[in-house]
């Protein structure tokens, strides 16, 4: 019996610190562990005892890359609890700010973290020496996403303009006009990005994933909708805990999510959204997807870089739609009053579904909070990919196999920084 171990002590080009261990026996993957050893971050505990209105500012600090996703899930969960509905231009502004974050996050991943895998570079810096024009295009494109965040979020780091019920300040129509011009350029750049990544050489592997995403009757999923899967799941966010469970595993400080009752691992994120909501993409995004050979569904995880590029086109289109239709609202927020209860929401962070649950008392103090980021939800699926997919590449020389393993992890754009939770301390006193 031959036994081979592929060990990557510190994974490069993923956000946060993680490692990987894959054990092969006779060419078959025996086990795969995606190790998360980033220190715990205690955010759920930080929230307890704070007033609910502080939530957007606290959760924005969970991630420097995707603060909006945390803010959006947080405010939606609290509005759900308080019985508040945010509609019209304020709702549209939320889609707009989310577009900014999708553009930023997708483009950073495509150009700096994932493309080097396909072009044979150790990283974005090395790639930039030979592909300077492409990298400059990516950086410029990312900046447009950043400008949306800056304008609507109030500042670049840890946006402060989002509040429960809407925004502290709504932009004037004329403030958005310069953004529209930049977005028109960005849409072209996103189109070029899609055509560029389509030229990469993709390993041909597919899996029968359980895709989980939000579904809205009229829109490509961002802020709200029912939680659905391609295997029959169709629930409200309030039913999340009844259908999903998080478990501790010894090798990780992040929790593993599964569907209850043997539903197993599931995939959330761009691939899930794309497969379940293709029809709701903009006309240009759909047309481009067809042009670059992606088709209406995609089960090859290595092609997720193409899906991200198509979603970037969509985000530019959607941002332009919002700006063109925007009329400044009379008031930037809907008033909210505290009342005791529990509220739930899920939104679509760039990397996938992000679920929040809050319990508050009559005074508005948070008694309990639960935050399940996409990387935790995808972790079990990622390990299944390593077992299933890497099994097909076990004949590769060690170094290439190791690289393929790392590439497989990067397909997910995991944000280990976000995924890390404090482990519950369990004491068995016999």
């Amino acid at each position, binding site marked *: 019996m031959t036994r081979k171990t592929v060990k990557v002590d510190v994974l490069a080009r993923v956000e946060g610190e993680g490692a990987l261990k894959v054990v092969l026996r006779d060419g078959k993957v025996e086990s795969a562990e995606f190790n998360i050893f980033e220190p715990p971050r205690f955010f759920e505990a930080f929230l307890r005892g704070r007033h609910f209105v502080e939530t957007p500012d606290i959760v924005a600090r969970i991630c*420097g890359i995707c603060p909006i996703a945390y803010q959006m899930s947080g405010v939606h969960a609290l509005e759900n609890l308080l019985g508040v509905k945010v509609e019209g231009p304020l709702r549209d502004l939320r889609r707009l700010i989310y577009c900014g974050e999708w553009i930023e996050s997708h483009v950073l991943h495509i150009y700096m973290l994932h493309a080097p895998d396909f072009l044979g570079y150790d990283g974005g810096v090395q790639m930039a020496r030979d592909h300077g024009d492409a990298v400059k295009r990516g950086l410029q494109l990312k900046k447009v996403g950043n400008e949306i965040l800056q304008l609507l979020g109030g500042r670049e780091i840890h946006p402060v303009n989002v509040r429960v019920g809407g925004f502290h300040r709504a932009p004037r129509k004329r403030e958005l006009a310069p953004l529209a011009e930049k977005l028109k350029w960005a849409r072209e750049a996103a189109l070029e990005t899609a055509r560029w990544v389509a030229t990469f050489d993709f390993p041909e592997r597919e899996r029968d994933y359980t895709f989980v995403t939000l579904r809205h009757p009229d829109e490509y999923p961002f802020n709200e909708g029912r939680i659905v899967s391609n295997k029959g799941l169709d629930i409200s966010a309030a039913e999340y805990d009844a259908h999903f469970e998080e478990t501790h595993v010894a090798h990780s400080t992040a929790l593993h999510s599964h569907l209850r009752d043997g539903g197993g691992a599931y995939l959330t994120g761009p691939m899930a959204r794309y497969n379940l909501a293709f029809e709701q993409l903009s006309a240009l995004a759909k047309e481009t997807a067809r042009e670059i050979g992606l088709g209406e569904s995609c089960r090859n995880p290595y092609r997720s870089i193409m899906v991200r590029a198509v979603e970037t086109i969509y985000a530019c289109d959607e941002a332009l739609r919002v700006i063109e239709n925007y009329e400044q609202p009379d008031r930037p927020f809907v008033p909210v009053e505290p009342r005791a209860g529990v509220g739930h929401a899920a939104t679509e962070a760039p990397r996938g579904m992000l679920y929040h649950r809050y319990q508050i008392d009559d005074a508005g103090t948070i008694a309990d909070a639960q935050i399940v980021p996409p990387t935790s939800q995808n972790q079990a699926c990622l390990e299944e990919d390593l077992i299933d997919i890497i099994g097909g590449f076990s004949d590769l020389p060690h170094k290439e196999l190791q690289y393929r393993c790392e590439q497989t992890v990067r397909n997910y754009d995991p944000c280990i920084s976000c995924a890390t939770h404090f482990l519950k301390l369990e004491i068995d006193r016999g």
Partner: protein
Amino acid sequence: MTQGRVVVIGVGNLDRGDDAAGREVARRLRAAGERHAEILELEGEATGILAALEKAETAFLVDACFSGAPAGAIHRFDAAEGLPAHTNFSLSSHGFGLAEAVELAKALGALPLRCIVYAIEGESFEISKPVSAAVTRAIEEVAMHVRDEIHALLRRE
């Protein structure tokens, strides 16, 4: 300002102990009314730093680092000459920070004419912990050095 755009970029996370050093330097300079430079604070993601360097003729990048030197030690590097490999800049948990920004700027020919990196040796990068005493002293000192360097540039005009 006649010597081209001068930027000071303080990098770090205010909620992570000594990692706040770079941003605290930026805040000291702003509080002291430094008018000859644009003062920015960033969390440390490389492409954000790169964007901030754009169109600057002179840039001062200030960040916390960990190289094994005593806490509060101040290192000064000229980015054009390269940053030492054994020094970890920015405890950004995203792993794509100041050193990568400098390398990326070089690869793209976008490094400002003068780009000086000040790194302050940190000792504790724990979440929600305050900046240590040794690093607090270094923050004051670096703010003074950066201000002196900016003013020396002005005098040279």
